[in-house]
Structures are given as structure tokens and as C-alpha cells.
């Protein structure tokens, strides 16, 4: 497979020459690289085209193309705007083919490492290729997943400067918005070192690139063969962090708290638990944002009503009224530790279910 940066530089050059906007997507229609001004083609049409036998199709402003290897669809390409979109699309397709061919013939660190962290390379092959590419096989390593909200070019540049390859660090683009950093680690507390690196990345990207990032730390591992595990745990940390700890810019696989447990639960079990805890599949209507804010503060203050009332600037009786309103709607009394715990877990489970529903197609 080609790196997003390789694809991007190829299509950017064509865009500059022809003025036609280009977008390259994977077989599922997820954008890998796009030129400025490119729009996402209509989703339904894209899906139908991907499933069809057609090699290319033009409609309205768009021309769509497929690039396959045998039976496997590798990329979808979209050329947009102008009467020459079809011709330019074909040129871009041809260029992508050439790049793929060149990549297949040339051993390339980035492709090797991308395949390695995704578990696509078996152990004997791993050592053979690592030696050929002069990549150190031994020593502590860990994967950091860096999610950006803006384009990655500047951030990539910055991180390459901070983590040069000659110190055993490798930066990979996993898609248009995400980067993976394989970090070489010292002999101390390796997970703490990964976390410190993640904190530094956030601060440096904030201050130097003036952009926001979230960083997920995987498990620190020994040797190259451990990297798939580190990458997988970083992905888990990233997802669990997004659901349960949205306010944190750095999330570590080693500090996922109760989110780790809930994330493992089957959805059916979660639904049964919510029904049992709240008496319905969702939060009862009576429980508005004000009551939820009150509950959060009460939990923060270890169920201390006076302290919570003081911090919320409300009278103690107002707080008690809100607690009783919640009790009436759910049967749970927040003054009671077990009920408070049940409600807290129910809120987390509801968060998880909502995330699952939103991400289901």
C-alpha cells in the first residue's frame, strides 16, 4: 500500500498542472488524501460504484475510477470539476499504478512498519526484512497514535524533527488524519516514558503547529515482534478515550479505568443493565441537564450534600429536591452509595451505547 503522503504529493502536483481536484479513497470510501477544493462524492453513488463491475463512471461534476490488484479493490479515485476531469482522472490512476509498482519492487521502511504494526508480517519474515531495512529488532518500543483535527502535513514535519529516525523512531501515516509514532524506549519505566512523550507531543503540536491533537499510548513492548500488540492497545486506548474521557488529550492504555471494563461488555448486556438500573432503555425525560450536573458534582464530592450545594451555589433543600426528583424517576437514591454507584455506571454505559449507535452505519 502507498502512504497517504506519497499519494498526496502525486495528486497535488496533478492538481497544480490541470486545476482538477482529486481525491483518493480506500475501498470503503474513507479518504486517504485529497487536494484542496475537493468535495466528497455522494456516499450512495460511491458505494454503488465500488460494488459495481464498472472501471470508471462520470456523473455531474465527478468522475470515479477504481484501482484494483487482481480481485481486490485497493483505491477509489475521484476527479472533480472541469471538462477534462475524466482524462485527468485517468492520468492520476496511471500514476497511482506506477507508484504501486515501484513500491512493490523497492523495500520501503514505512510500508514494512505499517504492515508490521497491523500484524500482517509473520515472525521469520519480520526479522529478514528488518535486517534488510536496518531497523533495530531489539530494545523497548511502543506505539503512540496521534489523532489530528486538521491536516497532518505540518504536524508530520514537526514530529519528524522531534523524533529523528536515526534514534530509532518511525513516524507513519495511518490515514489522512492519523499518525502512528513507533518510539524507541529506554530502560526505565517504559510506559511512563511513553506517556511523557505523548504529553510532550501534545504541547509541542499545540505551541508550534498551533493545532490540537489527541494522543493514545499503547503498551510498551520488547522488540519489533511486540509492535502489533502495542498498536492494537493504542487503538483500544484511543477508542475508549474518545467514549469515556473526551476531555483528556493524552490517554494511556494503562489508565483506562472503568471505561476499559464497560468497553468489553456486549451491547445486549449493557442494554439489560440500563433497563434494570433506570427502569427504561434511556434516561427518563425528567432527568434534565441540571439534575445530571448536580449528580456529577455530588459524585465528585463523595456524596457530601452540603459541600455539593455550596459548590453549586444552591440551597441544600434545592439539592435534596433534585435528588428526590431523580429517585422518583429511576428509583435510585443518590444519597445511598450503592445506588449512586449504579447510576454512575449506568451513565457510562449509556455513553458507550450512544457511541456505538452513532458509529454503526
Amino acid at each position: 500500500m502507498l502512504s497517504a503522503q506519497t499519494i498526496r504529493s502525486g495528486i497535488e502536483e496533478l492538481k497544480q498542472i490541470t486545476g482538477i481536484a482529486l481525491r483518493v479513497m480506500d475501498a470503503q470510501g474513507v479518504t486517504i488524501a485529497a487536494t484542496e477544493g475537493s468535495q466528497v462524492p455522494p456516499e450512495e453513488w460511491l458505494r454503488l460504484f465500488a460494488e459495481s463491475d464498472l472501471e470508471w463512471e462520470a456523473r455531474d461534476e465527478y468522475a470515479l475510477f477504481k484501482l484494483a490488484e487482481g480481485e481486490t479493490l485497493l483505491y477509489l479515485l475521484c476527479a472533480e470539476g472541469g471538462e477534462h476531469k475524466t482524462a485527468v482522472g485517468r492520468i492520476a490512476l496511471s500514476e497511482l499504478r506506477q507508484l504501486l509498482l515501484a513500491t512493490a519492487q523497492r523495500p520501503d521502511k514505512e510500508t514494512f512498519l505499517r504492515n508490521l504494526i497491523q500484524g500482517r508480517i509473520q515472525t521469520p519474515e519480520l526479522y529478514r526484512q528488518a535486517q534488510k531495512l536496518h531497523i533495530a529488532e531489539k530494545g523497548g518500543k511502543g506505539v503512540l497514535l496521534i489523532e489530528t483535527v486538521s491536516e497532518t502535513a505540518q504536524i508530520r514535519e514537526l514530529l519528524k524533527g522531534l523524533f529523528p529516525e536515526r534514534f530509532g523512531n518511525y513516524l507513519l501515516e495511518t490515514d489522512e488524519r492519523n499518525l502512528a509514532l513507533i518510539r524507541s524506549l529506554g530502560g526505565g519505566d517504559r510506559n511512563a516514558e511513553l506517556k511523557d512523550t505523548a504529553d510532550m507531543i501534545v504541547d509541542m503540536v499545540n505551541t508550534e503547529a498551533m493545532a490540537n491533537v489527541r494522543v493514545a499510548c499503547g503498551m510498551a513492548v520488547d522488540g519489533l515482534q511486540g509492535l502489533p500488540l502495542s498498536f492494537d492497545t493504542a487503538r483500544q486506548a484511543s477508542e475508549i478515550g474518545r467514549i469515556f474521557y473526551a476531555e483528556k488529550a493524552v490517554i494511556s492504555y494503562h489508565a483506562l479505568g472503568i471505561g476499559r471494563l464497560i468497553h468489553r461488555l456486549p451491547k445486549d448486556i449493557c442494554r439489560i443493565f440500563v433497563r434494570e438500573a433506570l427502569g427504561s432503555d434511556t434516561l427518563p425525560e425528567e432527568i434534565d441537564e441540571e439534575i445530571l450536573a448536580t449528580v456529577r458534582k455530588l459524585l465528585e464530592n463523595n456524596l457530601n450534600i452540603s459541600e455539593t450545594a455550596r459548590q453549586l451555589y444552591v440551597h441544600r433543600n434545592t439539592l435534596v429536591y433534585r435528588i428526590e426528583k431523580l429517585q422518583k424517576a429511576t428509583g435510585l437514591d443518590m444519597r445511598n452509595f450503592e445506588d449512586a454507584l449504579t447510576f454512575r455506571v449506568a451513565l457510562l454505559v449509556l455513553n458507550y451505547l450512544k457511541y456505538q449507535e452513532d458509529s454503526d452505519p
Partner: protein
Amino acid sequence: MASLSLKNICKVYPNGFEAVKDFNLEIEDKEFIIFVGPSGCGKSTTLRMIAGLEDITSGELKIDDKVVNDVEPKDRDIAMVFQNYALYPHMTVYDNMAFGLKLRKVPKDKIDEMVKNAARILDLEKLLDRKPKALSGGQRQRVAMGRAIVRNPKVFLMDEPLSNLDAKLRVQMRIEIAKLHQNLGATIIYVTHDQTEAMTLGTRIVVMKDGVVQQVDSPQNLYEKPQNLFVAGFMGSPQMNFIDAEIEVNGDQVFAKTCGLKIELPAEKAKKVKEGGYHGKIVTLGIRPEDVYDASMAPEMKNPFDATIRVYELLGAEVYLYFDLGEFPITARVDPRTTARSGSKVKFAFDVDKIHVFDKETEKVITN
């Protein structure tokens, strides 16, 4: 440089966590504003909202009278210095300072001018060709500052920039930052949890707790006229002593009774306590360690009382004496010539003119 206006700023995360609640502040051009408070109080979140690194849930943020809620960070004309800085290991000091400008495609001659100017301000001119490994900790920190200065921003935002330095270097860099503020005439917003840093650097300090602004004031006013128990306890090291006392009003005289002591409050304080209707109620008295005297060295002090010293701590220019008054632990900061030692029985006295009185329930100040 620039002025800033924050009106009713709130930050609520998607999971419902309210990090900042109804934050209001007007910042004048060239001010050095400090956000201070314990971990999790919302100070960094507020700074990140100003930077544009966090969305503002509600409220209005203006820089130089222009609403910037939806303006990208890079277009806000700000520069930031954060805690976990790093230098590019294989680049020289010059390149380290120039890198951010190169990323933003600033012309080469302009970069050269800006880097050399920043190097001059920070006294880094002779080090421009050095690599980071050949720099001391303080020099590295100055390079990190230089990366912000080269941007020539309207506002500097600093989030605990000295936290990773050792104590000696922190003091040295504190002075450097104060000098920098004078030299640049810049508007600086500085986040710290260290109240000493806050007191020494800020022209005004914003004390925060649980996402709520507790008090905005000059360092001196925060120290001398805290508006609530939290501010009183947070500002000052060692922290203010707190003692619960029952109020007794007798005509115009007001007494605070605690642990066998009957302290008559000065007329002005007495008037406020009396007017507040505190007769018979329990209040919290606050007294700074430097206002607790070894009575043998201050015979003019009234109402001396006996106490047994638990710990004697000599700091050179002063001595801390720790003892208990009933159930309340007290710290006294006294002259090093005191003869008091651990285990000895000593007569102490409070300077009643300096006593603060707080409502025990609301924790708000009754009189300072």
C-alpha cells in the same frame, strides 16, 4: 500588543464534565495576568480556549474587540509556551527558533530578522550555532521562549512553563520572564499552580477552583484581603492558620471565643461582625503565620497564651514554629533569635489587627 475580553465563558465536555463555569475577565493591554488554582480547577482549559485549542461551549471571547470564538488558533496572533517543551535534537538553536516560522512559510530574510531579534532579547546570540545537547537547562528554556517570541504575537500564553525545571532554575527563569514582560511590553497570560510564582510575576491574579473564578485582584490584595476561605488558604506559604471561634457581642465590643481564649476584635472588624448578626454563631478566624508572635519578643501584643512547640524549623532568616491551639494546628513565622525549641512551652500572641473573619457556612469573608 492586545487587550482581551472573556464574557460568560463556559466549557462543557461531551461527557457532561463542566471544566469552566461563567468565566468573566477583562484583560488590559500589557497586563501580566496569572491564572492560579489547584490541579483540575479549569485554569489550563481557560487558557486553551483563549488559544483556540478548545472550543468554547458558550460565552464570548474577544481579542482587541474582535470576537474570536471561531477563529483558528494560527489566526489569533498568539504564541504559547507550555510545560512539556522539547527542542529539535539535531537542529541548532537558530533552526529551533526558526522552525515554526518555516512551517508557516515565512520568507527566509524575515525569519532571519525575527530569530536574531529574539536571540538578542533572550541573550542567546552567542549560542545560535549550538545544538540542544550543548545547552544548559536555563538556556534550553530560553530557546523554548524564543520560539514564542519570534512570532511577535499580540498575546503570550504560558501554561506552567517552569514546572519541569529544578527549584534553582525556576527562580532564575521567573526573573527572566519578568524581565521579558518589561522588555516586550507584552500582554501575558500565565497559568500556574504555584502561588509563589503567581505572587511574584502577576500584575493581577485570577484564583480559580472547580471551574469557578474565586477572586481577581492584585497580588497584595489577594494576600491581604482574600474574599473567601479558599483564597485565604491558597495564597501564602505557609498557609493561613484557621481557627473556629464563637462570637460574643457585648454592646460595641465583639469577642471571638476559642480554646479558652477570648479575643477582642478591633472596632472596625467588630462592627462588621456585629452588623452581620453573628452573635452566638461559629465563625472561622484566619491569621497568617507572620501575625502569630513569640510573645517574649513582642511584649506589646495582647492576650498571650501558652502552647507547646511540636516542631521547630530554622530556615535561616526566619523560624517556623508548629504548635496546636486546641484541635487547630498553628504555624508561627518568627524571628530566628527566638529561644523556643521543639517541646518547649512558649507564650504566643495574635496580632488581632491582622485577623480575618470568615462565615463558616458560606466560607465568604466577613471582615479582613
